[in-house]
């Protein structure tokens, strides 16, 4: 007996039982049977044809009109068959795309991973979590000479185009002689590269800073990036870390303003991407003050623990569904 005959027989059994005794059990069995049919890739019109066949067997005296009505139903089902088959095909395509994205995402991981460097004076904590498979946030630490430079950037657009853009920044940054660079000059350089190379609706926000251990000075500049925070240990106060500047990629001639801050023992520099302040809970947007109070709550822990705890709490508040890539970096001066 072929597979098709077996199915026909089974369908006939189920249908005749149901017609004799209309129980919920049999209806349920009928529904389960349709799973089998789908597994065998039986299309909607095949099922109608199966029904006709079985009805012919069970009711050889079936009225002509009844019989004809099934033929009509068969024709009408063809349309559903089209949609069903397209759906199958699209699902296969989607699976293929998913696996390609996996590959791209893991390539990105490898290419762009930035180790958190050990640095004598500073306790550094980093958390960077993508909303989708590919991360549109970029952060980079570079140790050169005695200094430590840190950059955070957010590429506008999400997903694959954003991540591709990021690779471009990384390579541009890697090839600029950073030691000589002041953050505001680096941004000016980068702005020119970005402006020439991205789509007119894309732009990049970025913050870049360099910490010099001898002077304990932090030089920084910003290009339209979400302001971070600065914690002043002596005053026990958090302030916004403002670094005004136009986002990268809008105008070729943009210039950036150099800022600097003296970092005392116990002070913290907190950098973030707007995925942190764009958190939306059932009650509305997370306010910056709430982020600060979360940091304050965890303040005495090592930097890595602070960022992880803050992330977990915000993740929880959002129902574990990130709207945007989330990056949070804390640098605490220890000695």
């Amino acid at each position, binding site marked *: 007996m072929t597979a098709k005959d077996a199915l026909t027989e089974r369908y006939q059994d189920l249908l005749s039982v149901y017609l004799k005794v209309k129980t919920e059990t049999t209806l349920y069995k009928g529904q389960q049977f349709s799973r089998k049919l789908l597994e065998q890739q039986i299309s909607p019109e095949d099922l109608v044809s199966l029904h006709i066949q079985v009805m012919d067997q069970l009711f050889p005296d079936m009225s002509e009109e009844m019989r004809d009505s099934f033929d009509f139903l068969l*024709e009408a089902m*063809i*349309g559903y068959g089209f949609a069903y088959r*397209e759906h199958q*095909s*699209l699902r296969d395509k989607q699976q293929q795309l998913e696996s390609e994205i996996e590959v791209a995402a893991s390539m990105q991981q490898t290419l762009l991973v930035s180790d958190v460097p050990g640095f004598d004076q500073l306790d550094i904590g980093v958390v960077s979590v993508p909303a989708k498979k590919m991360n549109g946030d970029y952060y980079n630490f570079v140790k050169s000479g005695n200094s430590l430079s840190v950059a955070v950037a957010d590429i506008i657009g999400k997903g694959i185009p954003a991540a591709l853009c990021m690779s471009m920044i990384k390579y541009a940054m890697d090839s600029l002689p950073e030691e000589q660079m002041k953050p505001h000059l680096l941004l000016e350089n980068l702005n020119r590269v970005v402006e020439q190379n991205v789509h007119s609706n894309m732009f990049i926000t970025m913050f870049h800073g360099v910490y010099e251990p001898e002077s304990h000075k932090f030089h920084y500049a910003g290009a339209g990036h979400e302001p971070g925070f600065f914690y002043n240990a002596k005053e026990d106060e958090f302030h916004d870390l403002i670094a005004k500047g136009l986002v990268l990629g809008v105008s070729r001639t943009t210039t950036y303003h150099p800022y600097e801050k003296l970092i005392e023992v116990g002070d913290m520099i907190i950098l973030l991407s707007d995925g942190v302040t764009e958190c939306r809970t059932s009650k509305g947007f997370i306010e910056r003050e709430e982020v600060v109070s979360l940091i304050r709550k965890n303040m005495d822990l090592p930097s890595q623990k602070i960022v992880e705890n803050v992330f977990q709490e915000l993740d929880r508040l959002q129902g574990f569904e990130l709207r945007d890539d989330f990056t949070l970096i804390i640098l605490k001066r220890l000695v």
Partner: protein
Amino acid sequence: MDIQSCVEVRNEWDIVSARQLGRNMAKELGFGNVDQARITTAISELARNIYLYAGRGKICIEPIDQLGRKGLRIVALDNGPGIREIRKVMEDGYTTSGGLGAGLPGVKRLMDEFSIESTVDVGTEISATKWLR
């Protein structure tokens, strides 16, 4: 009946004539009711395309026999504008018909063999075959 039969497609009524021709030939060859419906629908879709995009053309249907294997071949011909991006038109999800899985990919799946040739400003020829099971 070994000769090919053709229907000129110039208006919507001709779509029905083409269907009728297809159904009769399919029945005669011994195709079951589901396959008859599939063949007829494939003819509909191809005839509709001619009517909508080329204005006029023809659908030819012929029984075929290859080493004992019997089947039905449909050929849709027109001298219309041609298809600029065949690859796109054969992709699922790309549609000018409202996205219900119809279109050429749909026709391809209804039949067993499918081929398409088209030249811009010259015309299009689509051939599809269904074998008797």
